[in-house]
C-alpha cells in the first residue's frame, strides 16, 4: 500500500485538474474534509458569542450547559434525520412523535401506574410503528416523503390529543419516575448537563460508526446516490428505507422520553419548531439536499452551531429575536455552499494518510 501511494505522488501532474490543489495536502486535505465547513461555522459562532456574551457568563459552566442541553434534544433526532436526507428522504412527523412519546410515557407510567420499563416498551413500540408506517407508505407509493410525513405529522398529533382526552380527560399529565430512570433519562449531572447530552454523544458515536465505518453506511450513501443502481447491486432498498424511518421516530421518542422524565410531566403540544431545528441542523451540517452525501460530524457541528446561536443570544446585549436572523443567514450560506461542497468533494484526489 505504501509503495503504491508513493507512486501516486511521484506521478507527473498528469491529473492536472487536481494538481494545483494538491500542493501542501496536509492542510489542503483537512480543508477539503466535508465537515470542515460546519466546524468552522461553529467555531466562528462560538467566538462571536464568547466575545459578546463574556460579561454575561456565556463561557461559564451554566452558560455552556444551557446550549449543550438545548443541542442534545435536537441532536438526538438530527442525526437520524440526516441519515434519511442522505438517503434522499425527509421525516417531519418527528414533531408529533416527540409529544406522542411523552404522552405515551406519562399516561402509561403516570396515569395507569405501569412500571417504567413497560412504559418505555409501549412508547418505543408506538414510535417504531409510526416509523414503519412512514417507511412503508413511502416505499410502496413513491409519494414524496415530505408529504407522507406531513400527513403522519397531523395524524399522529391529532391522535395524541384525542387519545389523551379519551383516556385521561386532560392534555397534560404528570409523571413520576424511579431514581434510576431519572438518572438515566432526565437528571442534571455535572456542570448542569442533562442526561440527554450523554445520549446525544452516545448516539453520535454509534451512528458515526454506522454511517462511516459499517457496511450499512455504504448502503445509505448508495441509496441516496442512485436508488435503482443500489437495488441492482443487491441492497434491500425498501427495508433499508423503512429501517431509517423507524430509526428517526425511535430517536424522536428517546428525545421525548428524556424531556418528559426531566420535567416530570408531558403535554400534547406538537413541536413544530423542532422539525425546523432538526432540518436546519442537518443542512448547516453540510448534508446535501439532493442526498447521497453528508457526515455525522457535520450534523453534530451543525446542531451545536444552531444551539449556540439560539441559546447564546440571551447572553449578549443583542435582541433575542435576532437569533432567528442569524440562523436564517447561516442556513442560506450552508445551502449555497452545497454546490461548492460537491465540487470540492469530487475534485479531491489526494489520499487521506494515516
Amino acid at each position: 500500500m505504501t509503495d503504491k501511494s508513493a507512486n501516486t505522488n511521484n506521478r507527473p501532474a498528469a491529473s492536472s485538474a487536481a494538481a494545483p490543489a494538491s500542493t501542501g495536502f496536509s492542510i489542503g486535505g483537512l480543508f477539503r474534509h466535508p465537515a470542515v465547513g460546519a466546524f468552522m461555522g461553529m467555531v466562528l459562532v462560538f467566538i462571536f458569542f464568547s466575545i459578546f456574551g463574556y460579561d454575561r457568563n456565556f463561557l461559564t459552566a451554566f452558560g455552556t450547559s444551557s446550549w449543550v442541553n438545548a443541542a442534545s434534544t435536537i441532536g438526538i433526532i438530527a442525526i437520524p434525520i440526516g441519515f434519511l436526507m442522505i438517503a434522499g428522504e425527509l421525516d417531519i412527523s418527528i414533531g408529533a412523535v416527540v409529544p406522542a412519546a411523552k404522552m405515551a410515557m406519562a399516561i402509561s407510567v403516570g396515569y395507569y401506574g405501569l412500571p417504567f420499563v413497560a412504559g418505555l416498551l409501549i412508547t418505543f413500540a408506538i414510535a417504531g410503528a409510526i416509523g414503519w408506517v412512514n417507511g412503508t407508505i413511502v416505499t410502496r407509493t413513491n409519494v414524496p416523503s415530505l408529504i407522507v410525513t406531513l400527513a403522519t405529522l397531523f395524524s399522529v398529533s391529532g391522535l395524541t390529543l384525542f387519545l389523551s382526552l379519551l383516556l385521561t380527560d386532560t392534555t397534560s399529565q404528570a409523571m413520576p419516575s424511579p431514581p434510576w430512570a431519572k438518572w438515566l433519562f432526565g437528571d442534571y449531572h455535572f456542570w448542569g448537563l442533562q442526561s440527554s447530552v450523554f445520549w446525544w454523544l452516545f448516539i453520535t458515536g454509534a451512528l458515526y460508526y454506522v454511517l462511516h465505518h459499517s457496511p450499512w453506511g455504504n448502503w445509505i450513501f448508495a441509496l441516496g446516490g442512485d436508488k435503482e443502481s443500489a437495488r441492482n447491486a443487491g441492497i434491500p432498498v425498501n427495508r433499508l428505507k423503512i429501517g431509517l424511518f423507524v430509526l428517526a421516530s425511535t430517536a424522536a421518542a428517546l428525545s421525548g422520553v428524556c424531556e418528559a422524565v426531566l420535567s416530570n410531566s408531558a403535554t400534547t403540544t406538537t413541536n413544530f419548531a423542532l422539525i425546523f431545528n432538526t432540518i436546519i441542523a442537518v443542512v448547516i451540517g453540510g448534508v446535501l439536499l439532493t442526498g447521497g452525501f453528508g457526515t455525522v460530524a457535520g450534523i453534530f457541528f451543525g446542531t451545536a452551531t444552531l444551539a449556540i446561536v439560539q441559546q447564546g443570544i440571551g447572553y449578549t446585549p443583542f435582541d433575542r429575536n435576532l437569533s432567528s436572523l442569524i440562523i436564517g443567514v447561516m442556513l442560506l450560506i450552508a445551502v449555497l455552499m452545497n454546490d461548492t461542497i460537491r465540487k470540492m468533494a469530487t475534485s479531491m484526489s489526494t489520499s487521506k494518510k494515516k
Partner: protein
Amino acid sequence: MADKTPVLEMRAVDKSFGPIDVLHEISLRVHQGEVLCLLGDNGAGKSTLIKTLSGVHQPTRGEMLMDGKQVRFERPKDAQAMGIATVHQFGGTYPLMSVGRNFFVGAEPTKGIWPFKVFDREKANRIAVEAVQNFGITRITDGDRLVGGLSGGERQSLAIARAVHFGARVLILDEPTAALGVKQAAHVLRIVNEAKRRGLAVIFITHQVMHAMTVGDHFAVLIRGAIAADFRKGERTREEITDLMAGGETMADLEASIEGYMETHEGHPPASPTASA
C-alpha cells in the same frame, strides 16, 4: 465456435405487456469470449430485451438457457447470481462516493468481529484500484477519490471492472458509449475487448454502428421487437447495417410485396388507401 454450447441463449422469446407485444420470437445466442452487438433504433425494443435478459421482466413465451440448461429469472438478483451483469449508461456508479466504496456497494469487505464489523476501506480501495488498472485505466490511482471526479469513460470502465471482479460471465452493456466523446468511447471499447479477451460473453447494445463494428463478432439488428437480421463479422458493410437499422429490411419487404401484387394483378399497383378514400 459453433459447436460449443452458448453461455446464454434465448429461444423464440416473446414479451407482451397486456395486449401490447414488445418482443416477437427473439432468438439469440452468445458464446464465451464473444461480443454480440444488438443494434436497433430507439423504440426497437432494446431496453425490454435487456430487461428480459437481466431478470427485470420475464418472457411471456419462449425459453432462456444458460450453458444449455433452461433458466428462469424471477428478479434481477437471480440473473446476477447466475453471473449476468448489466451495466447501464452511468448505472452502478455513485458520483459522491469514493472509487473503493463504489466498487463494493452491496458486497462490502469487512474486518473485525460481529457487531463491530467495519468496512475495510484500505482493502476495498486496493482491490478496486487494482481491478480498474488491470483494465488499462491507469489514471485511477487513488481509491478515496470520488467517482464524480472521473470522466464518463472511466466511470463505465469502473462499472465493467466491478462486474468482472464479482464473477460476471455475461456482461450486458446498455449503450455504454452513447453519451461519450470519441476518445472516451474508444476507451470503453478497449475495455469491452479486454472483457472479451478474458473469456466473458458480452452483449453490447448500441445504435452507433461504428462502435459495434469495432468490437463485435456477431450482430443482431432489432426492428420493432423482432430480429430483422442476424449476421457475423464481415458479412455486412457499415452502410448495409445502417440501412437495416433505419428499417431498410422492411422497406425491401414492402417493395417485394408490391412487386408480388403487381404480378398477380396484371401490372397494376395496389390501390393507395389515401387515393381511394
